[in-house]
């Protein structure tokens, strides 16, 4: 049974939290909702769960008007950013709590609790109290409690946001297996991280300022971002978007001739465009567009070099750890075959030649 949201709107104190949100959530699929903080992701989940009313719009499941269905009858479990557990109960009792309230038999409760604790890797932790667990383990308890209810709808609101990056990495891998194992459940998972949305989602919904900007497979939203805003949200670091001109087979940026036009842009008429280029498709080279390094960031295994060209900021992603100093004068090489073209209002016009789905080595 699909869950259908149509034109959901919510305004609080003059600020739009949900703007005409229309989406279909399907059983057996994991939907990731990606957006920056304050995009409306949490509000959307709360509205689906019935914890938050809306001003207008409809929400239906199998013909039932969900907006008139009280919270406890929505067949929905939710996991929050903060690890919420009952501190005075053991891990086992935390997971069993909603099942007891639902009046299940003792055998059934024990069976379900053991099964869901096993699925989150906490089989031997049933007798502990939440305070004796690490943050990652506490969040697993909350997830186990949600899973044990076997609801038709499972909502997860940035469940990894408060964990450190090594733990996020590990749980993300586990989630992939865990959620693909949930049968006909509708799973909706919010995140601010593109890699998480891409890795986990069967369907990705891109949300911004209360609107759903695009819905599609991870491949679709990544390869064919409908707007510059989508392109920025689904890439980490955000896609470089810059104003440029196309003229006589040349792309110019900030007055610099940046690249020769490659085949995929050849049919475009001359004029002003916004171009998009991923951080991985810009490099530091011995010749190219002049820029100045404004900031350098190092992740575990990549270096992000922030460069300003005239007034236009670029981020360059280098594999490995590189020593680049603030204030260095550098030259950027932009890969012409990887340029996305958007019109002046930001709508997608052309994408780079399609990513090869199956290939070689090199």
């Amino acid at each position, binding site marked *: 049974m699909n869950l259908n949201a149509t034109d959901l709107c919510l305004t609080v104190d003059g600020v739009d939290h949900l703007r005409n949100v229309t989406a279909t959530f399907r059983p057996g699929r994991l939907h990731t909702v990606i957006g*920056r*903080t304050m995009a409306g992701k949490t509000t959307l989940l709360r509205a689906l769960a019935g914890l938050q009313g809306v001003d207008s719009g409809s929400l239906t499941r199998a013909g039932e008007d969900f907006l008139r269905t009280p919270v406890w009858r929505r067949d929905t479990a939710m996991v929050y950013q903060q690890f919420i557990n009952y501190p005075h109960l053991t891990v086992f009792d935390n997971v069993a709590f909603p099942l007891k309230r639902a009046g299940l038999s003792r055998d059934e409760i024990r069976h379900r609790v053991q099964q869901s604790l096993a699925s989150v890797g906490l089989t031997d932790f049933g007798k502990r109290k939440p305070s004796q667990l*690490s943050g990652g383990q506490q969040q697993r308890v909350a997830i186990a409690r949600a899973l044990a209810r076997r609801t038709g709808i499972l909502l997860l609101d940035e469940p990894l*946001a408060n964990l*450190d*990056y*090594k733990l996020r*990495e590990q749980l993300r*891998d586990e989630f*992939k297996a865990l959620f693909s194992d949930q049968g006909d459940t509708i799973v909706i998972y919010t995140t*601010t991280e*593109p*890699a998480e949305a*891409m*890795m986990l989602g069967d369907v990705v919904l891109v949300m911004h300022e209360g609107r759903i900007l695009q819905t599609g497979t*991870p*491949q679709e939203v*990544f390869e064919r971002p409908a707007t510059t805003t989508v392109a920025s949200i*689904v*890439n*980490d670091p955000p896609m470089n978007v810059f104003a440029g001109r196309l003229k006589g087979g040349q792309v110019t940026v900030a007055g610099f001739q940046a690249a020769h036009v490659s085949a995929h842009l050849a049919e475009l008429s001359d004029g002003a465009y916004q171009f998009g280029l*991923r*951080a*991985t498709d810009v490099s530091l080279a011995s010749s190219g567009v002049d820029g100045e390094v404004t*900031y*350098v*960031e*190092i*992740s*575990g*295994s990549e270096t992000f070099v922030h460069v300003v060209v005239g007034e236009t900021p670029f981020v360059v*992603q280098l*594999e*490995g*750890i*590189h*020593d680049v100093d*603030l204030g260095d004068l550098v030259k950027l090489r932009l890969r012409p075959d*990887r340029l996305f073209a958007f019109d002046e209002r930001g709508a997608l016009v052309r994408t780079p030649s399609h*990513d*090869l*789905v*199956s*290939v*070689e*080595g*090199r």
Partner: protein
Amino acid sequence: MAQLDIVDVGHAYAPGAEEERWALKPLNLTFESGKTYALVGPSGCGKTTLLNILSGLVRPSRGRVRFDGVDVTALPTKARNIAQVFQFPVIYKSMTVYDNLAFPLQCRRWDKARIDAKVQQVAEALDLHDRLRQPARRLTADDKQLISLGRGLVRDDVAAVLMDEPLTVIDPQLKHSLRRKIREITEQFRPTVIYVTHDQYEAMSFAQELLVMKDGRAVQQGTPEQLFEAPSSTYVGYFIGSPAMNFLTVDHGDGPFALGGRPLSAAWDVPASTLKAGEVQVGVRPEHVRIVTDPGPNTFPGRLKGVSDHGAQRVLEVEIAGQPVRAKTPRDQGVPVGEEVLVHLPRAKVLPYADGELVLRS
């Protein structure tokens, strides 16, 4: 700014505990004047204990602490002339931004003109110069945190700036810009900085050198590049980098290493006679593993078990001789067809480990 020396310092919170259980096992460290250091490691690794010993909040069970050669072990915090930034901003709520910054200098009886010049200079660097007359309590958490830092920077004679997870209460979106700001400021004022965080990403983008801690021990000190390229132990290889470094158990007889019966050359020779009996592994970063079409040296048949789409990159999960290996590949390289693949481990990037420790080049 001062050089900080830790000489044979160890600490046990429980008196009489055996050394194996000390929160900080005896160690020697030097923090050079004007450099930025990050202490990283999971909770309970001893990083906060070490910071508190430097600040004087904790008197170590043994060893000496020296600032520029002067023994400060017995001195209380206020006699050590250090600046501290904590998880939560510490400001004088009743004062203006200006007075918050000027206060430490007034206490030192600087004359007014000198105070004013210094406050203006620091406020400019912090981007707070247009809000100097505002009450400090009205500022946002990230600006308050800048004031905490600024109060340390106004003092020319401060020995070191100690920061304990200063980004904890900062909104995720602002973390990036505050981190950048703190780095710019420390590059300008060049204080000796010791920064504690559990987030490797934060540590690597901020500090010139990292100290990775585990179970009360300093396991490796080095630049981000050194930790990435040559982790001193399998633990550091796991902790730094995403995904973690691959480790493969290899056979070693009298000749080179072997993996699945095929020879595997490492970056340097490891004569069998120099190895104690025990498990020998080779480590290779996912960024350096390559999928190739042609057989050759250090190239092994593998099976492709899974593909994880991270956006601009994919992580291929491969199995070689029954052992999992991850390869991080650029998106435009595509995904190999079929399950059978050839995996190349570039010799220069293959490091030998015995019993979890890097075998040094002889």
